[in-house]
């Protein structure tokens, strides 16, 4: 089996973001963020709140639009600058096709409350992919077993704990068979004792070499699971290095200051 770097060299990067800029009114939240991500990488994006890390993640799958810069997903351009330096997106149909390769998990789960756990997982394959129920059902049950919630298949989300909800949300995203998973602070809305079960599920995906970008405040998770840690502050990506090196010798003074504040 080739090492991670060799494998990365053989395939085009999963995500290429170049000089991504985004402002809300007069507030520039992304001041030229660039990031390349290879297949199988798990990148933890950390940084103080308001640093733009969630916004950056949301720009990658078009939940936010960028003002300038470039984003390629698996070699396909989602958005690039025109001659005037303004971001131009590809057609709506292309945007949907490209973004369909990314699954996303939110801080507040965003499960559909009127559907049972199983129906939450089936909804997109049935509606979006037009699959038959019996085609997707085995896969849905397998995913529920994987996140340890098969016994909750007929429960409504309101009956679940936060950790269970988030695991359903992960299974729901996986049902669409994404190549990349984006996590936007997946444990920030959970009680401390419930974060473990969600992080274990994400770690399990990492063991299966799922390409993942995880915005998180969990330093332990970043250290143990991430292959690389990216630190953002004030709308800039300050540094991005292998997890062990990042925590052992942070290069930038702002990174050091942030890490010290976290201890």
């Amino acid at each position: 089996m080739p090492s991670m770097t060799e494998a990365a060299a053989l395939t085009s990067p999963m995500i290429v973001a170049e000089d991504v800029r985004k402002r809300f009114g007069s507030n520039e939240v992304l001041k030229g963020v660039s990031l390349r991500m290879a297949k199988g990488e798990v990148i933890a994006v950390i940084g103080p709140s308001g640093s733009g890390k969630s916004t950056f993640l949301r720009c990658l799958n078009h939940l936010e639009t960028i003002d300038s810069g470039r984003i390629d997903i698996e070699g396909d351009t989602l958005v690039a600058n025109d001659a005037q330096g303004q971001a131009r997106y590809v057609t709506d149909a292309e945007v949907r096709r490209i973004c369909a390769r990314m699954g996303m998990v939110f801080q507040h789960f965003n499960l559909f409350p009127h559907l049972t756990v199983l129906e939450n997982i089936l909804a997109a394959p049935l509606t979006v992919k037009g699959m038959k129920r019996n085609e997707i059902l085995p896969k849905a049950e397998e995913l529920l077993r994987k996140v340890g919630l098969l016994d909750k298949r007929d429960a409504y989300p309101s009956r679940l704990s936060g950790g269970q909800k988030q695991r359903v949300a992960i299974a729901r995203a996986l049902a669409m068979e994404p190549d990349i998973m984006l996590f936007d602070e997946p444990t920030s809305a959970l009680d401390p004792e419930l974060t473990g079960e969600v992080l274990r599920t994400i770690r399990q995906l990492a063991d299966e070499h799922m390409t993942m970008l995880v915005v998180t405040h969990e330093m332990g998770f970043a250290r143990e699971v991430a292959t690389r840690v990216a630190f953002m502050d004030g709308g800039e990506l300050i540094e991005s290095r292998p997890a062990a090196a990042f925590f052992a010798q942070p290069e930038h003074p702002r990174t050091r200051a942030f890490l010290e504040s976290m201890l």
Partner: protein
Amino acid sequence: MDYILSIIGPLAEGSLVTLKLFFITLSLALPLGLALALIRISNNRAASTAVNGYIWLMRGTPLMLQLLFVYYALPFLPVVGVRLPDFPAAILAFTLNYAAYFAEIFRAGIQSIDRGQYEGARVLGFSYGQTMRRIVLPQVVKRILPPMSNETITLVKDTSLIYVLALNDLLRAARGIVQRDFTITPFVVAAAFYLFMTLVLTWFFQRLEKRHAVYD
């Protein structure tokens, strides 16, 4: 007692007119109201403003006036000028009026759904139409049941306004007997009829609310 039984026949006939107007109005005004609400919240400025103006007009003038306008004034309007028979005129006026109220109820319901629901659907690849049909509107139905219950009960009672078009609804039938027999008993019986209809509606909506409460 015999007297009451003797007037139940004509009052029941009047009730049929009332119920017919009620059900036809409801089945036309609900979809129209939903369509208006979707236009109102759409990004199309011009269409949204037009719907806004329409709602202002229909809620800002008495239903009675609208009834009279459709029946008496519509024939004299250029282009749309047609004389409608009395019952279709009543249907038209009621539908136009109630669609405006329903539109506001739908709009409030749709806008009460968390943005996260749209984002959750969007990242799974749902189109706007699919998101509305599968995710948003099913949740809206549950939230708007109480105001819808209110509005439909009001509709039952508002049907009595069609007496101005000389339609023999429940109330007009009762009034006819009162004037003929010099007794107010028919009014009391008519009240009982109305109460029965609104009671059935109340039950119906309570059952709907219970059914939608499973996912609370």
